[in-house]
């Protein structure tokens, strides 16, 4: 995070066959210079990095506060939600979650399983961290849906928009997770907001993609029927396209939640409290059991979210297809 002046070693795409694997990590591309690839010299490279960093730093110095205050409502939402989860009696929360689970999936055994999972988490002393993680996942997913569905709709309505967005989404999904942390931290410092933003950026692509896909897959003839009966753009969208795309959108939400969950552990590196913190401690201090328990709690949450969203998606799909 401090001066990233020494960037990653320069890439050698396909080139230097004979020195495959000879590159030491972090060697900075100095030692084998001249073998075959015309690399920029270190000074120039460093200057390039520096000027980009400087530009971004000026940007964040000038606009960081303004942008941060724009995120205040989200922070408020996150804090409120966390407060509720941390202050409500535990059994209320367990029952509420089991209730939501049953409402979404209509499966008794799944709901009982959820209750048991949360009881075990509580008994093993991870209740507080789990609630914090739950809060950030919940808020991050809400934001991802609020951003992702409109973007997905926009993408589905214009091929040009789709052509523009697809590579961006590809980059967002393949960029190593840690790289997201750097600019966010430079802009906002450590804490909940940068954590939330990093999680949302990382987790939003599936909702966008699957909303787009879902809408594009809606039967043309059914859309034609809506038109033929005089539905306008909005009625067509909300009355036909979105409801019919819902199973796909739910699959996107499911993936988004899973990605948010995996990002939460990493976000703990920039000060997001929750299950990630103890995992991080466990790694640095070699506390195997601590890491295992907290890791298992993350897995538990993942399974709960996954089963609930999936069986909800399946239920609405079953209703309409044989």
């Amino acid at each position: 995070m401090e001066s990233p002046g020494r960037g990653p070693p320069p890439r050698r795409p396909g080139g230097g066959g004979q020195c495959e694997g000879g590159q030491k990590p972090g060697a900075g591309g100095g030692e084998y210079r001249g073998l075959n690839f015309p690399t920029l010299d270190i000074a120039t490279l460093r200057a390039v990095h520096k000027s980009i960093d400087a530009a971004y730093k000026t940007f964040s110095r000038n606009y960081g506060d303004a942008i941060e205050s724009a995120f205040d409502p989200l922070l408020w939402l996150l804090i409120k939600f966390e407060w509720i989860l941390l202050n409500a009696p535990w059994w209320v929360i367990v029952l509420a979650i089991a209730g939501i689970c049953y409402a979404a999936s209509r499966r008794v055994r799944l709901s009982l399983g959820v209750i048991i999972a949360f009881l075990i988490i509580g008994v093993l002393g991870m209740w507080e961290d789990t609630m914090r993680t739950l809060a950030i996942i919940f808020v991050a997913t809400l934001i991802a849906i609020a951003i992702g569905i409109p973007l997905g709709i926009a993408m589905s309505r214009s091929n040009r928009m789709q052509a523009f967005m697809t590579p961006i989404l590809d980059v967002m999904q393949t960029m190593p997770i840690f790289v997201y942390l750097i600019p966010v931290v430079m802009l906002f410092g450590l804490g909940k907001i940068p954590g939330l933003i990093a999680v949302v950026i990382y987790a939003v692509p599936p909702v966008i993609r699957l909303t787009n896909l879902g809408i594009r897959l809606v039967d043309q003839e059914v859309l034609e029927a809506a038109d033929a009966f005089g539905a306008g753009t909005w009625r067509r969208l909300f009355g036909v396209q979105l409801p019919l795309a819902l199973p796909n959108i739910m699959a996107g939400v499911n993936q988004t939640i899973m990605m948010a969950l995996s990002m939460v552990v990493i976000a703990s590196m920039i000060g997001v409290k929750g299950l990630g913190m103890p995992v991080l401690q466990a790694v640095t201090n070699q506390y195997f059991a601590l890491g295992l328990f907290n890791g298992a709690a993350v897995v538990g949450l993942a399974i709960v979210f996954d089963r609930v969203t999936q069986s909800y998606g399946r239920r609405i799909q079953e209703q309409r297809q044989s």
Partner: protein
Amino acid sequence: MTAQTHEGIHVGRLYKVFGTDPASVMPLVHEGIGKQELLEDHGHVLGLRDINLDVSPRSIQVVMGLSGSGKSTLVRHINRLIDPTEGEVRVDGEDMLALDAAALKQLRRYKISMVFQRFALFPHRTVMDNISYGLALQRLAKPERLERAARWIERVGLQGYENSYPHHLSGGMQQRVGLARALATDADILLMDEAFSALDPLIRSDMRALLLDLQHELHKTIVFVTHDLEEAIEIGDRIAILRDGEVVQNGDSQDIVLRPADSYIADFTKSINRGRVIRVGSIMEPLKPDLSGPDCPHDISVEEALPLAVASPGGEARVLNGEGEPVGTVSLGTLVRALGSEREHDRAAAGIAGQAAEAG
């Protein structure tokens, strides 16, 4: 409304070219470039060429043709699901192409409705909600909506399925929902794009009977697309036959069967049961004053008239018009000859002439 108050549907000099820049190839189309050539050399698809069609109110106009002949494209111009490249479409005198988006929506809500080949029901809505879809768009209050939908559910024989989802129903039942959905809006004009083509033959004839039954009470203006001549003849007051985007013939069933415009249409009519299709009135000869009996109505089929003619001593029967006045004569010979197609006659005649020529 414009000064023109001509009722019914009018399609005039309608052209439709699909592609990136239809206007650029229109001169070629007017010069009569072939569909194949237009596609291969200019990358545009000729959908419709110079269509002129008038559908009189309260009648059933069938549009027939092979796959790709432009039937769907043509009906979709009537409610402007497709915009023409050139030409005009008028519904009850109103210029469809002059309508703005809002007026077009109104027209689709109240005046024209549509039934689709693959039903196109809303899979996430119950039968009841599907049928009342158009009524919801008409902003009808919910109680009235449900009441009207319930009436149509009963009329098409779907009682007990109100709360089922479409995929729980058989194809025939789904299309009953499609039909009820279209009829529920009380639109005067009904467009049916191969509405029965996806159904089994038996169900299909049930649906035809249902449609004719409904038409008997409702007197809609119906444009009915099909690729089945038998269906066309059973249903249509008039039948327009399309080939490669052009109308090759437009007439009633008697015209099509007795006077096919060309060999393309004659091919269509080959497999038809002529005895059942051809009406006595369209093959009768001038009235012989001295003939007294037996009498047969002008609109019975050849098949039905044959026994009458056979039973008559002279092998002839008198044809009566709708008012019961004698208007013509049919003989056994005429009736039997009607059973073979014109082309076979021609061929036979040509054959005899040829033999005669060779002999001579």
